[in-house]
Structure formats: C-alpha cells, structure tokens
C-alpha cells in the first residue's frame, strides 16, 4: 500500500498544527461558530445529535494492521471502545471531545492517517473496489489512480469551498464494486475500442440523496496522463456554475441535468483546453512510482489441486465452515488464494460497528494470514485480501471464536445501514433498530441462503448514507407528523446495470417492517423461476405483485 514520504508526512503534520490552532482560537472565542463550521468539517468533525462525530479517512479502504491497531487504541482512549465503518469506507467515532480532536489527528498522523476532507463541501475521500489488485475479474488495479486523486484533491486550494460535497469513485474490474454510477464522478478503467490501451471512462453527475441519479458518460475514453487535468476542468466548471442558493440543488447532478450532458461536456472541454498538457499532466515516472506501492506480495507456491481437495474435505466435515467458505470468500486472481470477507453484521450489533478488541484481533489475523493488510468495504464489512487456501480453516476457527465468522455476505441479513436517529442529528427516523428487527426475524440461515444474493439498504433520512436507492430492497426513514415511518423501495442496484429503486407505496410503522419484508420476500419466492435472483424477478414482474401482497 502507499507509504508516505517526507512530503506527505509534512503536509499531514502541518494540517494537525493548523487545526490545533483553529480549535484553540475557537475555544477562546476568536472564531465564530459559523466560521469554525467548515474548518472542523474539513477535518472530519460533525456535531451530531448526542456528541461530536469524527470521520476518519481510510483512503480507498486500505489499512495496514498497524493503522488498524492505532484506530483501536484511539477508539479506546478517546471514545467508548468501539467505532463504526461507514458506507464510504471510512471510520466514524461517535463520542470524541471537540477539544481532544487535534490530539486524535496527531495520533492518526503518526501512522500516516488523517481526517482531511471527510466532511464539508469539498472533494471527499476517493473510494474504490475492496477487491482491487486481487479480483479475478480485474482489468487494472485502480488504487494507484485513487492515490493520485487523493494527492491532487488533498488541500486543493481552489476546491475547498464547493457548492456541495463531491465524491469520486474508481473501478477497474468487470463487476463494479465501487458504485461508480452513483458518484459525482465515476471513473472506470476501460480498454480503448481500437488500440486496446487502457484509459478512463468518465461518468459525471451520479448521486443518491434526495434526487437519485445515475451518472452520465461525459468521456468514453480518456488517456491516463490527462486524468488530473480533466478532473480539474470538471471541478472548475462545477465550482463556478453549481448552485449555491439551495443545498438541495447544489450537487453536480443537478447542474448536469439543468445544462444537459452535452452542454456540460462542452463547458468542461473548453476549460480543459487551457489545462490539458500543462504541468499537471501526469508523468510516466509518477504513474509508475504510485503503481510501485501496489505490487503483488510474496505469494506462496502451493499444489493447487491438493489444497482444493483438502478444503473440500474440511467444508464437507463442517457445515458451518462450508457455508462461510461458500458465502464469505471470493475467487482470487492467484491460484491457491482466496479473498476473505469479515461481515460486521452480527444481530445485536449496529451494522459496521466494531469494538477495539475486535480491531486488534483482526489486525493480528491480518499479520498472520494476509500480509498485514485489511480493507474496508462500502458494505460496511472488512476484507482480508490475500489468504492462502490452506490457511482458511484455521482462520475461520479463529474468526468463529471471535464471533466474526457470520456467513451472510451479500445475503439478506448483510444489511447496509446508516447510523440513523440513534446518532445522527439529521435523521428522520432510527435505522439500526430496523436492521436488528429484520436480522432477528430472519435468523434461519437456510432460508436466507435460499433467497440468494440480496442487498437490503437502510437510510435514516434523504441524505441516503445507507444508499437505500440502490438496494434491491431499500428502506428510508421518513417523518410523518413527528412520527417515524419507513418508506420501502424495490429494484435498486449498484452493479454495472445500476438502477434506482421504485417506491412501493405508503410508508410503514417501524414495528411492521419485519412483516413487510417477509411479505416482499414471500412474493419473490412464489414468483421466481429457479434461476432468478430477487432482482431478476423484480425486473421481470415489476412492482405490482409486491404491492398487492404488501397492502392487501
């Protein structure tokens, strides 16, 4: 993974000092609340319902075991001994003290981490594929590009006060695991139709929130060296023309819709002409420097046939291991290895929550089994990306001992859920208790497996941090005359054939939600053909059969 040199370290250290001084001046009454607001947001600090919330950046989801141990220590020393992985691959602390945040940032800087631009109207942490570099279906590793974008966007002098927040995602594989269609800018590494040279397809104006939109292609193929100047041109057009009078119309998706993609593209091209081939054009040396941080580790050679046979025997001998192996591990690019997902979705814990002890335990497992690296996912889970097949059984036993071997990855109970009304000041309704009630209702794993792959996403308000629009089943907390209600939508997808879910009908009370979900699932089971997933069936039959059943 990327390692700071003296320059990176110096900037992050200076950032800590800058914010320490700003916090001091704020506490001394020399900076007003209004003026301090963006300063603290740019350092990840929100003021939430119950206490401040600090969002720590995990650039494109990559963590070393050393960094994870530091996060454990921080959540113990400065918080209540647990933290929350968000749907944007970041980590959130729910109870830090405002006055102590500079100390937390200094601790982070000591392991090459920060909270820069994790909130506020600026370019946020770039997200990517949690299987980057190891996925069997990968064309090119997106992480060097994410790092180049991280550096370009970090403390960018021109784009610190955009009309609204701005999110970029990059994917380089067949399957889109980075949800690039629902980001302000989505980048996909694609071969040129004629030459085959790999470049970027650029999408713009996707997003969730109040007005969900699938991104539009603004450039079919961009030569790699132009990445930064092209991004700069898009941002400059947005910074100047994006609406600033109303926060609900300020995202780039509204601008692109208002102008039309063609006119927007022309503006970007006009801006780009001035920047193209200028000093910010990437050099071969810089591209290979960044790529050099993401090379393959020293994989062990193994007798693939023998290991596979052994694994099959282990799976046959232990059904729980077999289930976990089948559901939570994924094909690796290298023979003899698998990608392991650690689902943070145990019933009784908020999705994405993890204790300090578990963080340390996972760091140890990463050291023993996966070259000391851990990844975070936008499904709020963790990944050990490079586990030798012959170690899988042992690893599973240890995870099981920790209660971290829940074998529900990609299934109904692997719920994506925002912090909601329990923590978030913006919420219309609680989301965690809904997730829990659904997980408790569907505790029969055989039924859950039989339902097949199913994304259930829950957001506590229109801001859509739980990405409810792109869940196969989406749940949104709404406020009805002061009471908490839940609106259900069906048919969303975050895959390459991305779609926005359609609202089923009038919203429901919280206590009815498990029943509602049960009826939806029963309808699917009734109507499906043997091969169909939940999404397939929905796309074939539409909303009506579900409506009839649920509102009968």
């Amino acid at each position: 993974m990327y390692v700071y040199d003296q320059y990176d370290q110096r900037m992050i250290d200076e950032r800590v000092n800058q914010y320490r001084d700003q916090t001091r001046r704020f506490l001394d009454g020399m900076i007003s609340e209004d003026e301090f607001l963006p300063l603290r947001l740019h350092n990840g600090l929100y003021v939430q319902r119950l206490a401040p919330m600090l969002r720590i950046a995990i650039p494109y989801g990559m963590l070393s075991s050393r960094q994870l141990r530091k996060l454990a220590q921080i959540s113990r020393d400065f918080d209540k001994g647990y933290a929350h992985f968000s749907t944007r691959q970041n980590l959130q602390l729910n109870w830090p003290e405002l006055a102590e945040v500079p100390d937390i940032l200094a601790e982070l800087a000591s392991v090459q981490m920060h909270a820069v631009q994790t909130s506020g109207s600026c370019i946020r942490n770039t997200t990517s594929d949690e299987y980057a570099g190891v996925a069997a279906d990968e064309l090119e590793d997106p992480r060097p590009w994410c790092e180049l974008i991280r550096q370009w966007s970090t403390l960018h002098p021109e784009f610190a006060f955009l009309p609204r927040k701005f999110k970029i995602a990059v994917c380089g594989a067949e399957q889109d695991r980075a949800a690039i269609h629902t980001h302000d800018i989505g980048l996909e590494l694609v071969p040129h139709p004629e030459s085959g040279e790999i470049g970027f397809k650029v999408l713009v104006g996707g997003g969730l929130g109040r007005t969900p939109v699938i991104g539009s292609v603004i450039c079919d193929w961009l030569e790699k060296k132009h990445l930064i100047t092209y991004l700069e041109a898009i941002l400059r057009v947005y910074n100047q023309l994006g609406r600033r009078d109303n926060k609900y119309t300020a995202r780039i998706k509204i601008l692109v819709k208002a102008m039309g993609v063609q006119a927007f593209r022309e503006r970007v091209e006009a801006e780009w002409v001035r920047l193209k081939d200028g000093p910010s054009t990437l050099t071969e040396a810089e591209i290979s420097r960044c790529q050099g941080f993401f090379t393959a580790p020293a994989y062990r050679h193994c007798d693939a046939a023998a290991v596979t046979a052994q694994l099959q025997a282990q799976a046959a001998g232990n059904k729980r291991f077999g289930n976990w192996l089948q559901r939570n591990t994924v094909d690796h690019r290298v023979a003899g290895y698998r990608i392991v997902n650690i689902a943070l979705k145990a019933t009784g814990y908020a999705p994405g929550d993890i204790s300090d002890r578990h963080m340390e335990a996972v760091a140890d497992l990463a050291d023993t089994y996966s070259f000391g690296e851990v990844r975070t996912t936008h499904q709020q889970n963790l990944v050990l990306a490079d586990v030798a097949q012959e170690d899988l059984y042992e690893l599973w036993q240890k995870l099981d001992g920790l209660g971290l071997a829940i074998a529900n990855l990609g299934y109904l109970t692997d719920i994506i859920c925002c912090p909601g009304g329990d923590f978030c000041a913006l919420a219309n309704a609680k989301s965690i208790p809904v997730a829990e009630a659904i997980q408790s209702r569907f505790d029969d794993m055989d039924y859950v497996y039989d339902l097949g792959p199913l994304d259930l996403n829950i957001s506590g308000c229109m801001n859509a941090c739980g990405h409810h629009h792109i869940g196969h089943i989406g749940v949104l907390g709404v406020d009805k005359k002061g009471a908490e209600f839940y609106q259900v939508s069906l048919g969303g997808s975050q895959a390459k054939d991305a779609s926005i879910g359609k609202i089923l009908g009038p919203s429901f009370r919280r206590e009815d939600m498990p029943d509602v979900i049960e009826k939806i699932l029963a309808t699917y089971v009734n109507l499906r053909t043997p091969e169909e997933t939940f999404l397939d069936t929905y796309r074939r039959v539409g909303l009506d059969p579900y409506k009839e059943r649920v509102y009968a």
Partner: protein
Amino acid sequence: MPDVIKDGRVVADPWQGQNLLTPQELNASGALLGAAAADAAPVAVVLAPDQPPSTIEGDLNRLGLVAINFPVFTDGRCFSYARELRELGYTGEIRATGKFIRDQLFFLQRCGFTAFQFEDDANLEDCLPSLTDFSESYQAAADQPEPLFRRRD
C-alpha cells in the same frame, strides 16, 4: 489610513481612495478611451461572484487591481476566478475583499490573491501566520507552477 495585507506584509493600502469600477463600467470606459486606453493610468475593478474573469478579459492589460468580493466566506467561485485571472496572464494585484476569513489565506494566496483587505483591519499582524500554514502542497497553482510530483526527490 486602513491597512491591508499585501505580498505577505501589513501595509497601508496603496489603492486607498481609488474608485473601483464594476466590469460594466470598465468595459464602458475602455470603449470611451479607445486606443488611448493603453497609455492611461492603471485602473481598478471589482468582481462579484457572478462576474467571472471573462467579463474583463479584454481590459486586463490596463488593470492594476482586481478586487474579488466575497459576499460570504464560503463562496468558492472567488477562488477559481483568481486562478483564471492568473491563467489569462494578469500579473497585477488580486485582492480579496468582503467576508473571507483568515483561515482561508493559505488557499487564497495559492490561487493567485496577493492582497487581503479585511473588513476589520485591527489584528492583521496576527493573521500573517495563516499565509504559511503549509510549507508544501501537492497541486500546481498560481504560486507554484509545478505539482509536487514533478518536484519530489
């Protein structure tokens, strides 16, 4: 006499008393002067956030001061305007006026602002350290034409 921060120091405002033209007034005066405009004394103009540099592009060579006024400190358009002015080749003073804040000085100066006229000029010396919050930056900008990746060793 009111003070401003200019080129990293607190100084008496060199443009004190100067009339700041709007882009419309500037364009009109240019048309009036015709060819004589080139020899006239440098003039000063003020841009509001819906008046991009393209509105004064033709008059840049007779300007000595472009003030960019922040109606609120979070109006990020002003940052892009300064950069565009520099990219158009304007070399005179670019001054921030209005509601910008001290904690923006580092970024503002990177974008091409060379002078800062605070609404309250009482503690300008205290603000100077914010100009040097960082000793290095990743991006190319008005103060540093090369991005860090072309300079790393």
